[in-house]
């Protein structure tokens, strides 16, 4: 098990290098010049050339790639062209907010998806089933930026229940504040994250609920479910302990994959709700052609995604004793 984890972590290195090469290639292909953006419309061609030389942008691509790898191996992701700050520092300052949003959304999506999927499965063909699947269809087909705006319009503008934009204290700090006698801080954080998290979770919740329903319907027909009833167990216990636990197996891997989608969706969601995370930063970095920063963000996302999927694989083995890691 430990050997397996170490091997998977070592595999991260070639994966990350591949990621860097692909991103680098894409950035070579897109038009636009950070030096021109930086110097503005009135810049002379000489000034732009000068700056490009200073930034190393005129070096051949293989030299630039090599330099980047050399820096990376020393733990240096380079400096942002526009913010004249180390990329690592900028990302570190923003990463927490994005992870918080993604994790809260994932938890929300999983809880909603499980609840709806299970209810729909045990009431197959009833109006609850129909309503749930209709909701799922809506959730799958509604883009996050549109749902986000609708939610904002309803809960922030019309009803005025929740703030439209911004973030409260980081959740972990807010929980600590609540423990030490400031529950209002926690409440503020929760009201701020509610709308963006819900908007971001909807799509995944819909996908998970459909999957849980299908998986449950299959498992509920299994012989061991009949055995559980034959033992005299109550229906609730059979559904949760015997059926759901087996139905979770295919769902688990999808939950891992959804985390990638959530990170992607976070980019849009953060822009709509002015959530101060990596997503906003990504959009700014791309529009400014801030190459080192884009590289750093993509690399960070890739590593987080790979780590989440490692956790999912470990969970998989924990839930299903038939799976051996190795």
């Amino acid at each position, binding site marked *: 098990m430990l050997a397996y984890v170490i091997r998977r972590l070592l595999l991260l290195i070639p994966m990350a290098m591949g990621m860097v090469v692909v991103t680098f290639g894409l950035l070579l292909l897109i038009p636009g010049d950070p030096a021109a953006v930086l110097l503005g419309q009135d810049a002379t061609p000489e000034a732009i050339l000068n700056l490009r030389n200073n930034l190393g942008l005129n070096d051949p691509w293989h030299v630039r790639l090599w330099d980047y790898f050399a820096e990376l191996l020393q733990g240096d992701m380079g400096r942002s062209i526009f913010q004249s700050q180390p990329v690592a520092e900028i990302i570190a300052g923003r990463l927490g907010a994005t992870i918080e949003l993604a994790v809260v959304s994932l938890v929300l999506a999983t809880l909603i998806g499980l609840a709806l999927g299970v209810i729909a499965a045990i009431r197959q063909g009833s109006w609850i089933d129909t309503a749930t699947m209709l909701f799922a269809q809506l959730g799958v087909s509604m883009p996050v930026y549109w749902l986000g705006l609708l939610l904002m319009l309803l809960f922030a503008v019309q009803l005025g229940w929740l703030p439209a934009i911004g973030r409260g204290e980081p959740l972990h700090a807010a929980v600590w504040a609540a423990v030490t006698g400031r529950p209002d801080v926690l409440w503020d954080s929760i009201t701020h994250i509610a709308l963006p998290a819900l908007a971001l979770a909807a799509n995944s919740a819909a996908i998970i609920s459909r999957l849980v329903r299908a998986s449950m319907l299959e498992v509920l027909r299994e*012989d*061991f479910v009949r055995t559980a009833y*034959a*033992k005299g*167990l*109550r229906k609730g216990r059979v559904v949760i*302990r015997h059926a759901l636990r087996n139905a979770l197996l295919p769902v688990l891997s999808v939950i891992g994959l959804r985390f990638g989608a959530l990170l992607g969706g976070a980019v849009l969601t953060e822009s709509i709700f002015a959530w101060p995370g990596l997503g906003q930063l990504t959009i700014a970095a791309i529009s400014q052609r801030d190459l080192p920063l884009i590289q750093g963000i993509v690399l960070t996302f890739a590593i987080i995604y790979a780590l989440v999927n490692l956790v999912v694989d470990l969970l998989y083995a924990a*839930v299903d004793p*038939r799976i051996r890691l190795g």
Partner: protein
Amino acid sequence: MTASTSAAHVPVFQVSDLNIEIDSGTGPFAVVSDMSFTVDAGETLCIVGESGCGKSMTALSLLRLLPEGVRVGSGSIRIDGAEFLDMDQRQVEDFRGEQIAMIFQEPLTALNPVLTIGEQIAEAVRQHRSCSRQQARARAIEALQLVQMPDPDRRAVQYPHELSGGMRQRAMIALALACDPKIIIADEPTTALDVTIQAQILGLISDLQKRLGTAQILITHDLGVVSEVADRVIVMYAGRKVEEASIYELFDHPLHPYTIGLMGAVPRGGASAQAGDRLADIAGTVPALWNLPKGCAFAPRCPNAAPRCLEERPPFEEKRPGHWAACWEHDDAA
């Protein structure tokens, strides 16, 4: 009427005039009709028949575990005199596993793959007895010892896929016995096992049933199994009883041509077997339950069918003392 009913005696298990129906696109049709029998403590009743004759549906109905779309149309199932079919969901759940338990055919799929053997047995114990986790676990290991599971302490913490087929079926039996039920229903308990293991498991079931004095219903298609363990036998064909008798009576004087056909299809070893002996088979196939012939359901395949057999269904009646059959042939035998 069935074999052992008398006025004063209340049998442990009594099924009367049970009818089971399946819903289909063209309306319901019967899969089991007029099923009646009783089983007493310490007695083993075998229900024999081909696949699709309704024996598994009968078994599931006895625990009220019929799949969706299948239901008991009418009839009565009495456990110690109490009407099982009238009970509400809670009472039914309290009876399952505690009063009446089931051993399923395929232990690999009938056991939950993600729970240990011990957890699955202890869960049944905790459902019916107020006891601690430790006590339930101890009872689970006791049950595993009872079924002669090798190394029960270790097996209790293993998962079904880690056991052999024979051990899995032992675990299944231990699960059924964990709460000392009065009635055990075993649905083809040895069919999924290797031939060498079949005899062991059959011996175990029979031995435990005698020791614990449970009333047992064993469902099988295998007359060899019947001859090993049965006290009484019911032969089913196309959803109905066609013959019922004690084991000796049935094997000595089989009356129904279907029973005689089944006996011809059992391979025999030993001195009487000769090289080149062919197994007898029964010509034709089982009729579709939604399209049964008007007369005797077996008539189209029966070597002795008379015109009357095709027109009128023979009544199920006592042909010899303690021996019932549904056949026109032996009308004068009694």
